[in-house]
């Protein structure tokens, strides 16, 4: 896998796995990696790039051996 894409996927995993202020803390790192890509892809829509990376994250997640527990959340 392309290293830059892998870094984006891992940065998004932190955003996705975290809650509340922790998620707020991780999001700028992910957004800043997106910004870096956008600098060399000025004709690309940032939203499209973002959605593409999040779809790539999902593919990555399916391949992981360690998964979040498949138990229903407590009410």
């Amino acid at each position, binding site marked *: 896998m392309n290293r830059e894409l892998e870094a984006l996927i891992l940065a998004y995993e932190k955003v996705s796995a975290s809650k*509340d202020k922790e998620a*707020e803390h991780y999001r700028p790192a992910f957004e800043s990696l997106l910004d870096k890509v956008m600098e060399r892809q000025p004709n690309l829509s940032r939203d*499209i790039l973002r*959605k*593409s990376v999040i*779809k790539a994250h999902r593919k990555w997640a*399916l391949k992981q051996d360690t998964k979040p527990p*498949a138990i*229903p959340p*407590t009410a």
Partner: protein
Amino acid sequence: MGTVRGLRVISENRVPLVQTQIRDPNKPQMEQWFELIPEIQAQARDSIKRQMEEWFSWMDRISDVHRSSCVFREPTLGQLAEHKIGLEFAIEYGRLINTLIDDPGLDEPDLVSRLQVRIRQLQDAYDTFHDTTFSDAQAEEVLKQVFPE
């Protein structure tokens, strides 16, 4: 149970419940009622904060289900349909609540920020599976062009 600024506290959540009986016989009744306004406002603010915490907890549970059942595992068609309904509801209500609390009069930027983080997470979750304007194949094409192996 106790008193706060002369008001009986009858709940355990430190919110003074306004009593209908005015206690100081030397003050005009209307004046005493107006003195209660700050307490009533504090009570309303506490109530909003408690409600928000419940919303946050509920939105976080939706996110947990999304990750464990749809991101890290392959959902069934039925689960995906439930996923769509749950997320649409959560995002729509999240935005409605945002309109209510993102008000200078309420002055709770921390609550607004915490809510917006969740709305963004839920929107990402929704788009991953239900955004009909952008397919997996289109995403693949973009990724190939932007991130060559």
